[in-house]
Structures are given as C-alpha cells and as structure tokens.
C-alpha cells in the first residue's frame, strides 16, 4: 500500500512538473501599453495637446464623492484632439495603484486600457474581456455610470477601482467639455 501511494505520488508529481513547464512555456508576458503608445493609439500622436484641470473646492468634493477618498493630486492632466480626450488615472484597488487609460468622446467612453496592474488579485481587469464593458458607457443624471459593470469573483476591489476611475474621467471630461466645444466652434 505504501509503495502504491508513493507510486501514485510520483505520477502526480510528474504531471505537476509537466504542467509547470508547459505553463511556463505558454505563459504570455502581457506587454502593457506605455503612456505614449496609449496616447498615439487614442489621439493619433505621441505628443498631443494637453492641459490640466485643477481640483478646486467644488471639483475636489465631487471627485471625493466618486472615489470615496480625496484625489491624490491637486490636478489632473488630460490630452485632447478635437472633442476626444484621453485621461490617465491611478487608483488603488486593494493595495497598489492600477494605472488606467480612458478615452472619451462626446461624453461617452470610447475605450479603456489598463496601462499598469500591480495588484496580486484581480488580474482579469487588465484584459479586454473586462475593459470592453466600459465601451459606450456615459454618465446618468446622477453623474454615475449609466450601465452596470459586471464584477469578477475575488477581484471586487480592482473592479471597483476601474469603475471609480471611469466615473471620475467622465465627470472631468464633462467639466471641460463646453470650453473645448467653444474652442472648436471658434473661427
């Protein structure tokens, strides 16, 4: 019986080793987009026009309500080309900041990309099967996302971080949307 157990264990260990090496061989080193790559893909150039939006008292209060904590910066930089804006937001999921790139046009999310994911759980959110849920999402009348974002089991905090970031980017884009439209309309 003991010999049989050891034989079984040996077989299982061999299977385990095979799995390990197979896994290592097929594991993909997912290359994140760099910031210039994200901007080029979003706005057609690596150095688009940019500006900053400062968090005054009113805007800081709005951002705090959305994020559940005060924004970590005094201002937020954004890049634009016509009415299309691109935002890069750092938001903590459980322990570490997740860097998200969000492209917005006419009050609607055109694309979301995870530029850097550092958390130990919730890796699912960095892939298109998750981020594509945000395509076409807008603000509702309460300045919240107008569509439900389905979660990932065991990745609740990362999902929430992505959702908060999208919400903030949409609100900020609305904040600057009118001046941009005026600029475009100007001769």
């Amino acid at each position, binding site marked *: *019986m003991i010999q049989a157990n050891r034989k079984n264990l040996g077989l299982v260990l061999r299977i385990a080793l095979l799995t390990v090496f197979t896994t*290592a061989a097929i594991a993909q*080193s997912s290359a994140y987009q760099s910031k210039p790559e994200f901007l080029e893909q979003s706005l057609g150039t690596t150095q688009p026009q940019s500006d900053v939006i400062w968090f005054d008292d009113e805007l800081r209060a709005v951002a705090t309500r959305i994020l559940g904590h005060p924004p970590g910066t005094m201002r937020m930089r954004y890049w634009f080309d016509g009415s299309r804006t691109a935002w890069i937001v750092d938001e903590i999921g459980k322990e570490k900041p997740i860097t998200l790139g969000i492209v917005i046009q006419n009050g609607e999310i055109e694309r979301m990309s995870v530029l850097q994911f550092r958390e*130990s759980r919730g890796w699912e959110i960095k892939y298109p099967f998750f981020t594509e849920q945000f395509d076409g999402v807008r603000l509702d009348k309460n300045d919240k996302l107008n569509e439900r974002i389905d979660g990932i089991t065991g990745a609740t905090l990362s999902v929430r971080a992505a959702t908060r970031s999208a919400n903030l980017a949409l609100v900020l884009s609305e904040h600057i949307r009118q001046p941009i439209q005026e600029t475009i309309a100007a001769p």
Partner: protein
Amino acid sequence: MKPYLYCLGMVLLATAGPAASQTPDIDEIWEIVQQQQREIADLKARLADADAQLAAADEKIEATGDYLDSVAVAAPASATKIGGYGELHYNNLNATDSTMDSEEIDFHRFVLFFGHDFSDRVSFFSELELEHSLAGDGAPGEVELEQAYINYALTDSLSAKTGLFLMPIGFINETHEPPTFYGVERNAVENVIVPSTWWEAGAALSGHNEIGLSWDVALHSGLAMPTTGSSAFRIRSGRQKVAEAMASDPAVTFRLRYSGIPGLDLAASYQYQSDASQIAGDGLDAGNLFVANASYDIGAFRLKGLYSQWNFNGFAIEAADADKQTGWYVEPSYRFGTTKGEWGVYARHADVDGARTQDKFTQFELGANYWPVDNVVLKFDFRQRDHELASEVGRDFDGFDLGVGYQF
C-alpha cells in the same frame, strides 16, 4: 470809435496775448513726443519683464504640480503595506435538545495583513489572525499565522510562491473577508468538507492568460487526520497548520479556473494526499479531493454553487464508512443600491455528509447583508439545520445570527 467797440478791442487783446504764449512750439512738441516714447518703451520693458516673470512662475507652478503629482501617485505604493479584516458574531440558536442551545457573542476573527515589496518582482505577504478574542491557556481562541510567503512574479502572467499559503480551493478559502460573502458564519460545506481556512507550506506556481483562464499547481504539506477518537477521519481535524507539522507524505493541488466573462466564475480543483494521516499502515492512506464551484451574475442577481467530494483509501476509514465525504450548496442572491448604501438578500441550501455523525446534515439559510460603505458590512441571517441520523436529532436547531465585519 464808439466806446463799446473800444472796450471789446481791449478785452480781445488782453485774452489773446497769454493764449498765444502757452501754445508749444515744434521743439516743445518734439520733446513731449520723445518723453512719451521713453515712457512707452519703459512700459513695454516692464510688460516684457512681467511676461517673463509670469512665464517663469508658470514653469515653477507646472514643475511643482508635476512633482507633487508624482509624489502623490508614488506614496500609496510604499513598499510595506498593512491591511486587515475582522468580524463580530452574535448567535442565538435553539436546538431540539435545549442543552445544546447556543446564545453567545464572539469577536470571531481579528486579522492583520502585512506585506512588503522587495522589488518589482519579489514580494512578501502574510496574514496573522487572532480567533475568538482571547488566546492562551484555557482561553477559547488562538493566534494563527495563516499566510506567510514569498511571491516571485516571473512574468506579468506567471508567478511562483513559496512559504505558507492558502489552498487554491473553492470560494471561501482564499477570499474570506466578511464583506465578500453572505451569512454571518461561513458556509458549512467550506468548513466540514473543505476545511477553510486551510493553509499548508510548500511551493506553488500560478498563471493566467488573456482569455481569462488561470491555473495553480502547488506541492505542499499534507493532512494528518486522526484515525481514532471522537474526531476520527474528520478532515478539519487533519489540518496541521504548519505547526511542527509531520511532513513525511506531501500533497499536490491543482486548480483550473475560467473568469473570462465578467460575472462568470468557473473553477475546478483537485488535490491528492499521498497519506492523509501521515502514518503508514494505520488504515488511512491516500486521499483525493475534487471541488467544482461556479458563480454567475445576471445583473443584480447572482447564482452561486459548490460541490466537493473526498475519496480516501484505507481499511480503517472504509470500515468506518467515512471513505467518501461530500458536500454541496447553492446560493441565489440579489444585491441593490440605495442612497444610504447597498443591500443584498440571499438564501442558501447546503448538504453536508462528513465523517462524524453530527457532520451529516442539511442546512437552510435566509438573510441579508447591508454595506453602508463598500468595505463595511452588517449581517443578519436565519438558519435551520436538520441532521440525517436519528441519534443526532437533538442537535437540530434553528435560530438567527447577527454580525458586523470590515476589511481595509
């Protein structure tokens, strides 16, 4: 000449004389223009200077803003991190045999996480728990080290870890912070059959890919289940908790999981115990555990279920009719938001067939969670447990539980 004409002529002469003397001549006008030119030049110079100062101030503000932004972004990612969770329970259970009634309040778990990043690739994570508030001789609780491992990120999608870590099995074992599950007490199946919280020491490899498939392979210490006494063949009693644990017969665990559709989670785990008692020839030999679990969200509605089964070899465990131990549960729930937080209601039916006579039962639960903020939860549930064996009917109970939990 008439007298009035004479007077008029005198007045004109008197006024015309001084006016003619105040009109600047061409040289004076040139001087005035020169003076104004100098003043304009001076103003232009001052304006240029002001513009330069403004531009310099702008540059300084930009530089300061950039620096503060970079500091603000970097600060939360400090190398050492602390987190934690905790839960306070109140149980009020009425048993068929009133001597088995239970009415108690207990700070069931107080947990602190400590983690440290040694580099971008190498990190440490730990979980230290105080159970039941008080530990020591004669005290009801324990201080437990539930996780302590070094993780090495080989690539962005492949990592290895070694140390003391949680078994990649089921829902609760790896993710058990109170705001993440329904019910004051954890579900009975992932207590009796999958003995959560269950940790072992060893090494593991984990990987995932872009279609949402992930896998774990772990080689680790094994169970040491008792083969005699009141807890004979009880899986939960086989956890050695990596405390001077016997390590003659290791175990391996595999998990394959698919989470490539948001809202859907499918997983299957398999574990092989080479000798579940760590003692040769005692009638308990190898063990095989299979667990399948699934969760699916349809809008605010979630359906969740888990099935688990142990099969053991050995003449003693077969004689005790404990060589097959199973458990399953289904849990529908509905979560909705209000202006004052979120609510969730759930029901759960669990069927447990463990080794001990009191571990063969069905349990029905109905309850609600209220999250005033994301990471704090208040819980209420009603429970009813019915035992399979007539000898255990006295243990049948119904009652309610109240709880509060948090994580950070």
